[in-house]
């Protein structure tokens, strides 16, 4: 998967001065599979970047090409297909269904893709240390626990690109490390890549490329 940025500038960030090596108002190409780190402080547009690439936001100048096609030209149907088969996401606000249990949240995604068996999903819950939270509704889980459910959900589909918007913000360094390990293994199985946004920490990991905002 190739993502090509041509002078992209989100409307809300027009007033800011952007550094010469910022992704905004620049031309560059991201090739996946590769592991990309997007490091920036608050308010520089990390979530905007993730949401724009994921097709949720359209308020920007410039052009983003996905495998040579303008993102703006994709129909809703094409986006949905893309989100099912080649592009996954962990939103900063997670976007879980609070009324459903952790397990139901995961099943809802897996029922669509049939990507992993129940045993495999259970194994992921165990890896991240929340197997006992399986049948608890998401709204009753702590933010850290919810974050882990969202991480597992994002892995229940084939992907070439996994977009992660501060996925470890509520995890301690040790748990973040374990989670990133799981993500890396799954990414490798999918032969895919990811973009991880973070407030600065690299979680003790080396990336193929680092971007700045």
């Amino acid at each position: 998967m190739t993502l090509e940025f041509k002078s992209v500038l989100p409307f809300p960030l027009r007033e800011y001065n952007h550094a010469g090596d910022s992704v905004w108002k620049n031309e560059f190409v991201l090739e996946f599979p590769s592991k990309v780190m997007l490091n920036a402080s608050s308010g520089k547009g990390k979530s905007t970047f993730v949401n724009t690439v994921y097709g949720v936001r359209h308020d920007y100048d410039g052009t983003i090409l996905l495998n040579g096609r303008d993102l703006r030209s994709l129909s809703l149907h094409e986006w949905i297909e893309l989100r099912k088969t080649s592009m996954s996401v962990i939103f900063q606000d997670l976007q879980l269904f609070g009324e459903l249990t952790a397990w139901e949240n995961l099943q809802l995604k897996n029922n669509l893709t049939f990507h992993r068996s129940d045993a495999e999903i259970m194994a992921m819950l165990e890896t991240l240390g929340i197997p006992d939270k399986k049948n608890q509704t998401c709204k009753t889980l702590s933010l850290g626990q919810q974050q882990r459910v969202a991480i597992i959900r994002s892995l229940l589909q084939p992907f070439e690109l996994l977009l992660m918007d501060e996925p470890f913000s509520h995890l301690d360094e040790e748990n973040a490390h374990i989670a990133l390990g799981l993500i890396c293994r799954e990414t490798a199985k999918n032969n895919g890549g990811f973009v991880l946004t973070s407030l600065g920490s690299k979680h003790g990991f080396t990336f193929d490329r680092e971007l700045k905002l």
Partner: protein
Amino acid sequence: MLRKLLFRNSTNFQFVFATAGALIGLTALLLSFQLILDVRSFHSSEKELFGPNSVVIQKKVTKLTTVGMNSTEFTPEDIEALRSKEFITDVAPFQSADFKVGISEVPGDGLPHFYADMFFQAIPDRFMDIDVDWSWNENSEYIPIVLPRDFIMIINYGFAQSQGINQISEELLMAARLTIHIDGNGKKTTMMGRVVGFSQKISSILVPESFLEYANGLYSNGNIINPTRVFITTTDDSYGELEQLMEEMNLDISQASIDVAKIKTIITVVIGIFGVAALLIMLLSLMGFVQYSQLMLSKVSYEIRTLIRIGYSVKTIVMTFVVQMTILFGIITVSSITVMTLVNAFVVNTWLNENGIHLEKSGFLPSVILAAVCFGLFITSNYLSVRKTIFKLGRS
């Protein structure tokens, strides 16, 4: 799980109201529709009031007519003008005998001795308002005659008393034969006749068309006679036009016929208003239901948006709603038909019967078909509205 997610808080006030609204709306529509059907059948089965709208018209006799300066005849142009009116569906002039007619008793048949000059007229069979054996040919034993019912009334309650003669029952009059004296074209003859019935509507002495044609052929004095009375059949809601025609042609129409035309016009208009009101109720409940489904969607807009973000297709989500709607509205439709049937049987009919109105039931199939059409309409409009909203949510 999708259903659990999308309908978890759908059983609430709005749901109960929308369902009740749709149930009441559809039941009202079906009830009115059924009633309209029943009344329409009443329309066509009640002879007196709701038979075909046949009216006898004649021109008014004025002072000028009496002194011979004005004619009450309908010229061929007049007849043509009548035929060209849109609200008149049938025109038939009365035929008159062009010879002199007299009747007297047949001795021994029970009638007192009498002789009276008469006239004969004939109308097409389709305008006869009574059911009698109206066939006649040269070999027939007698000529069937129909008298106006008022005629025997005048004889029995007026004439008989003042002249001191016996009253005559309808049966006796119909049993007795009459001697018919015909005089015309230089020839005289007598034939047998018999009264076969009495007409409420036509104040004339009627004989079969076939007889009159035969007799005119033999005894006509050779005059060309324009008819003075014409039978017309009008459409149901034509009272206004009929009144206008009366003005234009200076017509004389019996008050009873005008009243019937008036009543029929009123009923047709009332039924029309009834139908429109029922249709409005249905549309209102349809709108209520579409609004309810929109409310339901807005309550789960986060869920829908997120489902699309994690890869659920619009079609899958729309179908989840439509299946739910179909089940719900299926239940509403079946309930409406049931309620309508019960109300019709136990309330409307009881009430009508108590008031002495006996309707010929016209069957429930048309109502069931109407309910099915409404069902289809509800599902389709909801499908379109849900689909549009979900698309919009998906793009945001």
